[in-house]
């Protein structure tokens, strides 16, 4: 029977039907807006997720010695004050927090619960940063999504594979498995004075819009900074030879640890991609934005501070350029050459 039905459909309708089927399939699997993604979102909005997020936030407040109350919880979790009130009731009844006037603080149980959640979150952020190609601005949200569903065992296995990281990609320490966390170090960039120098140890990843702008400016944990001036509350500082100006709001997102033994690097680094064919230069370092396997591979091939590099040949289509490092020619794409810093010493550039 079906045979004849199929054969009697005119080709025009078949084409339309074909497109319809393809369309439906695409809609189901479309990232972010498709059916599967929507179902995922609905699953996210349950109570446990909010509870864990609230604990995490409360812990962060205490760690940074800030005050927090119902309003700030509501703001941080992006829920109504009513909902936040209910949430606090639950936390109280579960014995995870205590309240003193408006001030909320964690009990010991609450603290260890939140440390567990934070450990999972930061390990996954580390994983996303080092072992996947997820965009930097998405790490936090992606980890937020994952952290409520993975088991502890899976996370520990992951941590073991990665060599038990102790810092997340924003420079924050990851609590140990027993719940240890070092004392907070450093001070906020907006509290620094002219002439002070240090190293960025943390860039806050919330709110996301500010974080994205800081990342876009090329700031990263581990970067040396030197404050050259404070003007109307604006912080002016040198970072990797570039001058940056940040408003207090932005500067408050950055934590800096004072460095005493190192004089700040004032020379501006150039990028490997700017090296012309036949020129030679000394490698100054690899940007921390080059991570994981890519970074390892470059270092393996001899791209380390101090070694000499020369641009030897362009590929027929122009992009990967062959650079000679430690006696080997390696092809490096422009995308990566942009992440490698060099010192061009004019006496050295002759070939």
């Amino acid at each position, binding site marked *: 029977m079906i045979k004849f039905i199929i054969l009697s459909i005119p080709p025009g309708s078949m084409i339309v039907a074909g497109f319809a089927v393809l369309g439906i399939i695409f809609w189901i699997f479309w990232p972010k807006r498709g059916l599967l993604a929507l179902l995922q979102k609905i699953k996210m909005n349950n109570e446990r997720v909010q509870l864990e997020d609230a604990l995490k936030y409360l812990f962060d407040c205490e760690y940074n010695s800030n005050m927090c109350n119902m309003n700030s919880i509501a703001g941080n979790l992006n829920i109504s004050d009513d909902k936040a009130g209910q949430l606090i009731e639950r936390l109280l009844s579960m014995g995870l927090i205590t309240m003193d006037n408006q001030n909320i603080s964690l009990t010991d149980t609450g603290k260890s619960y939140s440390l567990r959640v934070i450990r999972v979150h930061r390990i996954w952020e580390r994983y996303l940063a080092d072992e*996947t*190609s997820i965009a930097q601005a998405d790490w936090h949200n992606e980890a937020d999504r994952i952290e409520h569903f993975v088991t502890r065992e899976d996370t520990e296995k992951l941590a073991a594979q990665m060599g038990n990281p102790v810092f997340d990609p924003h420079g924050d320490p990851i609590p140990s498995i027993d719940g240890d966390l070092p004392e907070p170090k450093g001070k906020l960039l907006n509290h620094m004075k002219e002439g002070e120098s240090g190293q960025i140890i943390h860039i806050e990843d919330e709110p996301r819009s500010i974080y994205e702008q800081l990342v876009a400016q090329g700031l990263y944990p581990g970067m040396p900074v030197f404050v050259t001036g404070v003007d109307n509350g604006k912080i002016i500082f040198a970072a990797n030879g570039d001058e940056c100006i940040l408003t207090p709001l932005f500067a408050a997102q950055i934590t800096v640890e004072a460095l005493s033994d190192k004089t700040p690097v004032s020379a501006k680094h150039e990028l490997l991609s700017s090296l012309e064919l036949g020129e030679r230069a000394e490698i100054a370092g690899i940007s921390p934005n080059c991570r994981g396997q890519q970074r390892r591979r470059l270092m393996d091939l001899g791209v380390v501070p101090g070694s000499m590099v020369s641009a*030897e*040949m362009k590929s027929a289509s*122009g992009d990967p350029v*062959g650079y000679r490092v430690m006696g080997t020619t390696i092809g490096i794409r422009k995308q990566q050459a942009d992440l490698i810093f060099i010192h061009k010493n004019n006496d050295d550039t002759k070939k």
Partner: protein
Amino acid sequence: MNKNELQERNEILSEANKARWDLGVNFHDTVIEAIYEDASRIARKTVKQQGEKAAYSLDLKIDKIVTSRWLGFPLMFLMLAVVFWLTVAGANYPSGLLASFLIDYMHPILKQAAASINMPWWLDGVLIDGAYLAMAWVIAVMLPPMAIFFPLFTLLEDLGYLPRVAFNMDSMFRRAGAHGKQALTMSMGFGCNAAGVIAARVIDSPRERLIAIITNNFSLCNGRWPTQILIATIFIGSLVPAGIAGFVSAGAVVGIAILGIFFSLVVSWGLSKSVLKGEASAFSLELPPYRPPRILQTIYTSLIDRTVFVLWRAIVFAIPAGVVIWLVANIHIADLSLAEHFIQWSGPFALVFGLNGVILLAYIIAIPANEIVIPTVLMLTVLSTGTHGMGEGTGVIFELDSVGDTANILHAGGWTLLTGINLMLFSLLHNPCSTTIYTIYKETRSVKWTMVSTFLPIVLGFIVTFFTTQIWYLWFS
């Protein structure tokens, strides 16, 4: 005591953890830098570079030519064309020789021997017409081209030329989210997809390696070229005057191969933007110095490592397939063989895709090797149309020396120009052969990626043939 020890050990560990917080985020880098500092100090003490680097400057001269803007690509295409020409031209004669020995000469002898010991007809059919013939076919068609292609390819590899090809091609593959070395796995795939999948080992970044493995099937392999050429000659060559028929049908086949490259790039791009988005990606490409290849050793190792290895896997899969092919043609249920049942049942569905039941069945039972698709198609067509006097008997796969006779059988089977075009498309876009599927599993160790590589091309194949057919109907109705 023991408890004490355990505690002591855990103290060491938590001590280490605390120290790691103190050492900061750049710790790993400083460890490596310290080692390099020592290495560089020792190297400065012990290594002396005298005068001009003679050999390297020769390397650089060669590199300037093979990677130059104007000569780079033509040289590469010339080199590949020569390799393919040598393979096709050189394999023709030994292939014919092997076929006439294994099929025309050995097959009747085996049949006679079976008859003389009174082997039951069904056992004789399963073993000799089924298993033996499928194996013989695979060896005859597969061995000679691979025995020429792989050593040639390996010679280019040992010489150091292939990394330069990857270097030149990288920008195209980068745009598709893939690695320049995929150019090599793709070319290797023109010889054999299973070998192409194995060759993807040289790509050390997980994401790009998976892309190369999954898309390798879009390289029209050695086993599919004869199908393409035969069908193009019969259905497309016959459209134009005899004088240019050869040229036009060759053009059609090359067009299909280029379409394959196109699909390979588009699918690479799609994969890197969707399912493989989260896989780690890293690019590194070392350009080793040129080295004179050791020809004899290269030929030996490439024959052992690649040709025999792949051939063996193909034979292992071809033998049971031969048995299945014979059985479906010879097991009867209510007067019709299993094959005929399937062909009649699936015919209408196949028509929607401009194919027919014979083609669908042939691609299902000839999954071990694309080489036996055409013989199976011929056998099934003869079987289902009830043509007599062609071929060697029920369920015995065969091929004809004359293209004209083959065309007659296919026309009798109801084939049209549209069927021909769709078969060519479907031959490019269908699941990899079982040897390749098995190899993909061995290489990725993942059922998920094996499934994706298996079903992605065939879904694409059905989509493409569906729209081709329906638009064709719309146009000509």
